[in-house]
């Protein structure tokens, strides 16, 4: 069980950031469902409920998701179901149960770059930017590659487009963590393929995505793209699956996702 000496609920992001930087062990609290299973020692826990970051909104060009939005809101929000073939709701709908999804926050999953995340691969294949209080806006893919640095994730910006996207995974049981998951998007002729739960953090398969984007999309081309993903993305082993199993599984999942995204309307 984690321990927390102090707990604050700041009224502004500026105050939250100031407190965060005061001590090494000061930490932003997300939904805390995962935190409770660890033994982290927190000096001051910074709880962001009062910052109104739990909204999903839109402007002319983007869908804006507050970092304190919970997964259940992502799953049921009409905007999320309307855009990108509903890939975001599809990626979170099988995480444990309704009650947990009402607690888990988008910001905690994305900022922590959880390897087991079902959400991150789907965000990676869309045109998604993260907004950090100090670091400003940057593409999610760049953020995923950066080393950890203290900051506060405030919002995600999903650029509206005609992109179609699909999320697929394999689990031992329906509400378990994914053994492996993948997302594929198609915008015009451009494809983006991302794989997560490797079990390391999710990653875009750049070579395979480029190959598929210029291919004739025949069965052979899809097969080759799926093989390329398996070759360029590294895998590891954990209690849910071995490296070799994940590598074999990856081709099948990506092939399935590509075929599904081609049928997406």
């Amino acid at each position, binding site marked *: *069980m*984690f*321990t*927390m*000496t*102090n*707990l604050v*609920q700041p009224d502004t992001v500026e105050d939250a950031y100031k407190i965060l930087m005061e001590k090494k062990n000061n930490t932003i*609290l997300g*939904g*805390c*469902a995962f935190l*409770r*299973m660890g033994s982290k020692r927190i000096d001051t*826990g910074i*709880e962001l*409920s009062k910052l109104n970051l739990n909204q999903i909104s839109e402007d002319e060009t983007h869908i804006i998701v507050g970092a304190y939005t919970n997964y*259940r809101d992502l799953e049921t929000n009409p905007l999320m179901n309307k855009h990108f073939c509903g890939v975001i709701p599809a990626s979170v*709908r*099988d995480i*444990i*149960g*309704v*009650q*947990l999804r*009402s*607690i888990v926050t988008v910001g905690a999953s994305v900022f922590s770059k959880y390897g087991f995340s079902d959400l991150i691969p789907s965000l990676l294949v869309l045109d998604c930017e993260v907004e950090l209080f100090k670091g400003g806006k940057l593409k999610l893919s760049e953020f995923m590659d950066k080393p950890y640095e203290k900051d506060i994730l405030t919002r995600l910006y999903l650029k509206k487009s005609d992109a179609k996207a699909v999320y697929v995974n394999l689990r031992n049981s*329906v*509400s378990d963590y994914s053994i492996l998951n993948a997302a594929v998007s198609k915008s015009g002729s451009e494809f983006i393929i991302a794989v997560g739960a490797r079990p390391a953090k999710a990653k875009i398969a750049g070579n395979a995505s480029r190959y598929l984007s210029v291919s004739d999309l025949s069965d052979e081309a899809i097969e080759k793209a799926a093989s390329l993903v398996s070759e360029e993305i590294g895998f590891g082993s954990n209690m849910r699956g071995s490296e070799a199993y994940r590598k074999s599984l990856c081709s099948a999942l990506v092939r399935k996702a590509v075929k599904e995204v081609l049928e997406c309307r």
Partner: protein
Amino acid sequence: MQINVVINGKSRSFETDNNEFLADTLRKHGFLSIRQACNTSCCGLCTVWLDEKPVLSCSLLSVKADGRKITTIEGLSQEAEEFAKLLMAEGSDQCGFCSPGFIMTVLAMKRELQNPTEEEILHYLTGNLCRCTGYMGQLRAVKNYLGVK
């Protein structure tokens, strides 16, 4: 720290520790319908409503409930009794340990889903585990309660 909540329609203030979870806070103050089993966010036994939405009270820091509306099964006794009778009629009430959390989720589902399909019912109830019944009796009871085939 002190949190102020409206619980089952009444305003209450509770003293909580920084790393205390809502299930512990509520049980400490007499809401003993809330059961705790897994404490790893898996079983759904500790389900309460926060602003009318079902949440796992074992995984929700008490401070997150500050200023919000909590509903436990004690606040829904009439509806809960109505559904519990259907559970008994289907022989799916065996040890009863999971029943309060399960009933809270079913009552939330009734408010949220209009005329759900069997698939939607099963998906909504995924987060509630029962080690006794095998779920089929529960499913029949839920369908009877919701008036769906």
